[in-house]
């Protein structure tokens, strides 16, 4: 599996577009800046929804109204984050696919997606009698806490990707190389 990923990344690396993005100071940095700036839109909205469920923000606005109205701007921000995120991986494919932090981030993204699905299911199934209450019912509060934890960790691990602590060329064979998916004898990093 790791070898397959490595070969795929090496193939992506042969693309002229990948090289061009990577080598363009302004293009690469603007894509990364856009990725980070859309945190303000996507996570900003998400945090407000979660904090509203927990009774810490916008408590004078009905909880389901917050969740429904902020969904669209949140999804717009999320879409931009996905597009720019994939472009960043495409620009630096080998190092990205062998980043232990990106791998953990992907797992957390899947967990956050499952949590979001369950949260929306619980929100839709609730009778809405609690809508004006300061705090949402327990199952929604748990979903909100998990969402805050998952996304907090996603941002932390996303930030760690920039650091080369566990890059394949700087580590010895062992646990970190195993988790990073380093391939024996690989020539590209």
């Amino acid at each position, binding site marked *: 599996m790791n070898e397959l990923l490595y070969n795929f990344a090496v193939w992506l690396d042969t693309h002229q577009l990948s090289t061009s993005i990577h080598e363009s*100071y302004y293009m690469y*940095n603007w894509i*990364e*800046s856009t990725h*980070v*700036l859309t*945190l*303000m*839109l*996507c*996570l*900003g*909205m*998400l*945090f*407000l929804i979660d*904090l509203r469920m927990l009774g810490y*923000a*916008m*408590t*004078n*606005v009905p909880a389901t*109204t917050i969740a429904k*109205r*902020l969904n669209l*701007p949140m999804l717009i921000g999320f879409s931009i984050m996905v597009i720019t995120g994939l472009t960043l991986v495409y620009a630096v494919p080998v190092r990205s696919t062998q980043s232990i932090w990106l791998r953990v981030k992907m797992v957390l993204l899947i967990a956050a997606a499952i949590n979001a699905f369950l949260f929306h299911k619980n929100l839709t199934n609730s009778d809405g009698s609690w809508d004006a209450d300061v705090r949402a019912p327990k199952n929604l509060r748990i979903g909100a806490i998990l969402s805050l934890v998952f996304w*907090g960790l996603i*941002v*932390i691990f*996303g*930030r*760690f990707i*920039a*650091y080369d*602590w566990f890059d394949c060329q700087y580590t010895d064979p062992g646990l970190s190389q195993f988790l990073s998916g380093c391939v024996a004898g690989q020539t590209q990093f």
Partner: protein
Amino acid sequence: MSSTATLGSNNRTIIAAAVVLAALAFSFLPPRLIVYDNLYGFFMWMETTWFGVIGQTWGAVFAIVEAFHLLAMALLGGAVFVSDFRLLGLVFNDIPAQDVLDKAHSVFKWALAVVLFTGIFMACGVAGKIYFLAVFWYKMLALVTGILFVFFVKRPLLKKDLNDINPWVIKLVAVSSIMVWVTVAAAGRWIGFSG
């Protein structure tokens, strides 16, 4: 005669605008170099503080604080977008604007406090680098403008009955607010690319 009487009910707004304009003018005039040179010692001292030593010694701590800075910026952005989108009529049109603005402002204040605290920590860790970066000073200018704008322009203005304010002024305030805070975030990100 008091300043309130002299400047009318918008005295805080006028003073804030004057401070921002003076800071902008000063940042492009030669006398800024005198202040800039004198600040070098202060930046060197920042690196010797606890924050500076921790930031330089433990890269992981610096990275985690960086992540919390981003998370706080995300929350701050959420508060800014929600209140400004309401002013632009994009969300929560059926909810009184003051209700949305007041609650969003409480979130904004908490987020700003975390942004400033984590920002100071990070600045101490890389003080010797950022002192020489133009983009750092642009960010500081944008940040001060943003803070003055929120507390001395936006809040005082929007505490009035919104029906008494020209709708275009409200929209202008909302767009300006979004632009200022996006500039703060973008300039902050570019600090990482520079130097």
